[in-house]
């Protein structure tokens, strides 16, 4: 009888899935414009203003706007990343502490001329894959096409902190000289969708809003490509679960760039232990494709196909560790330390901890276990109103996992090689680390 119930479940599941079968998908070829890069050789990058351009909406001729000039004084494969209090989030009483923001240019390239919009304060997240924008931040005259004819496709995107419910559309994304054409993106909290079904609301709490995200959306540029999420088709006011082909799923736009499509580098300067009001770093596209993204001199950290590696801290192994710019602090269990009222570790004084990072599998073997350090300071002495950037707040982690969050990125350049990319340093996914300051913090 146990088997009978399973046997009955399967055909019904198939019925529920039928509407999504064979759906057309976005073009996922590594296509795009074939223009050259004329300004990718300067090494004097990292300049620019400390605030992001405000959102604007413009009708642009597209793709004739490419190659663009250096909009931020940077090489064309690079954009500035800003850590600051986002005024729009502050107005809602939300802090955007340690939240790395970029501006993007979002386009509907299905029309000529294309319609584009600059969207500011989009979170750069190395722990996810694909572009997700609050529907309320996208101007309606962009009128982004749905990914397929028929019922609207929706996704329930889950994070530990909660879910985002939104519709799936095709868009083109431009960042400085890079163009990702016809990539599936999610419009979060899209009022044209039916409410999130119980199977989605049951995963946690709704974080598809400005106060929870801290910005207008998430740009997932981690080492994988498709998000492999929970998709639905929606009609007649309700949504049912469906299988969406990988080629139609929300995907890391970096993989869609014409040339610099094998990974990214995130670089941030060192900051003081007391924090800093704002920080300007850079997001550089491609690895070993331009003069500014060579991995020569980097320490290589292989990961498994879930982007996990092993961290050894105080003799304890954490084999599901990862480096995630979308995590605000470091989340690492430190036995013996007490917690303050914020829930953060509170040592008596600033304390440096050591960790050794290495591959968690034998293939690929790790050539060199990598020693790193991170600081811990009682956050009750920190000013979270004046400062947005902190490198030394640590919260308890998981038994098998150290989450090296945004706190870890300062004083370093960290590379994220996309799955399947083949480089002299290895085959992705892997991480690459290099210090940009003497103390690497």
């Amino acid at each position: 009888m146990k088997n009978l119930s399973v046997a009955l479940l399967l055909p019904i599941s198939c019925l529920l899935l039928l509407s999504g079968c064979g759906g057309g998908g976005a073009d996922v070829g590594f296509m795009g414009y074939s223009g050259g890069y004329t300004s990718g050789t300067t090494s004097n990058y990292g300049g620019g203003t400390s605030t992001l351009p405000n959102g604007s909406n413009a009708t642009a001729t597209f793709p004739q706007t490419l190659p663009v000039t250096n909009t931020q004084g940077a090489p064309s494969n690079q954009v500035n990343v800003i850590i600051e209090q986002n005024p729009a989030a502050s107005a809602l009483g939300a802090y955007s502490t340690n939240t790395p923001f970029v501006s993007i240019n979002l386009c509907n390239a299905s029309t000529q001329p294309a319609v584009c919009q600059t969207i500011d304060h989009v979170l750069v997240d190395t722990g996810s894959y694909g572009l997700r924008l609050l529907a309320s931040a996208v101007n309606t005259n962009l009128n982004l096409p749905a990914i397929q004819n028929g019922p609207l496709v929706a996704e329930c995107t889950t994070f530990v902190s909660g879910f985002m419910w939104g519709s799936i559309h095709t868009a083109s994304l431009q960042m400085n000289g890079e163009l990702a054409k016809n990539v599936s993106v999610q419009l979060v909290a899209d009022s044209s969708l039916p409410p999130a079904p119980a199977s989605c609301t049951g995963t946690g709490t709704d974080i598809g809003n400005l106060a929870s995200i801290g910005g207008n959306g998430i740009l997932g540029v981690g080492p994988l490509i498709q998000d492999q999420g929970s998709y639905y088709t929606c009609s007649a006011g309700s949504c049912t679960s469906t299988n969406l082909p990988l080629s139609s799923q929300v995907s890391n736009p970096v993989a869609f760039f014409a040339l610099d499509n094998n990974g990214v580098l995130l670089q941030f300067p060192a900051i003081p232990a007391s924090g800093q009001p704002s920080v300007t770093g850079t997001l550089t596209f491609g690895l070993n494709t331009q003069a500014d993204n060579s991995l020569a001199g980097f320490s290589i950290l292989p990961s498994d196909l879930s982007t996990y590696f092993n961290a050894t801290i105080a003799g304890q192994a954490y084999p599901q560790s990862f480096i995630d710019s979308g995590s605000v602090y470091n989340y690492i269990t430190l036995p013996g330390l007490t917690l303050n009222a914020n829930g953060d570790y509170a040592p008596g004084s600033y304390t440096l901890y050591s960790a050794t990072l290495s591959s968690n599998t034998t293939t690929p073997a790790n050539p060199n276990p990598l020693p790193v350090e991170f600081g811990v300071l009682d956050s009750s002495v920190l000013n979270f109103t004046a400062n947005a950037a902190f490198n030394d707040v640590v919260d308890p982690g998981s038994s098998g996992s150290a989450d090296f969050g945004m706190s870890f990125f300062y004083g370093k350049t960290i590379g994220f090689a996309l799955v399947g990319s083949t480089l002299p340093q290895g085959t992705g996914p892997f991480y690459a680390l290099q210090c940009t300051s003497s103390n690497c913090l």
Partner: protein
Amino acid sequence: MEHRLNSESKHLVLLFLAGALLLPRVVGAALGGSDQRLALEGALQPSGSSRLAALPVPSGVREQTLITPQGVSVTQWSAQGFVFALRWQGPMIPDLSAILGASFQSYNTALKARPRLGLNAPLRVQTAGLVAHTSGHMGAYSGWAYLPALVPQGLNLTTLGIEP
């Protein structure tokens, strides 16, 4: 034990047929509830096949593992007819309200109460009634939960891969 499963499966089939066309959810067991089929759509796995713990099932404890169509593996453990612990792992967070049952409210209250820590700061819920943990990032999440009041005396939760 098998008799119990059989009779409950009959109910399950009827309930499922009644509800399937409206809701892709399954009526069944939840944390703290009676020892039925896991309340998620998916394929039950042979007994002792948990991909999560790969640990021997303690005596007096019944283990049930299911894999959802999205590839999330969920294992629940029950004793004396009641589910006292579960553990899950997969590319996304599953419908926790279905498998945590009444305890989902405690879980979600803890989730909402914490400050903005980014997308994937691990969550630990530590209340008198429920202890739970969720961690990971897109494509590779995992978690566990147990009800301290229902854990059999003398059972070491770490043998189930749970950190008490």
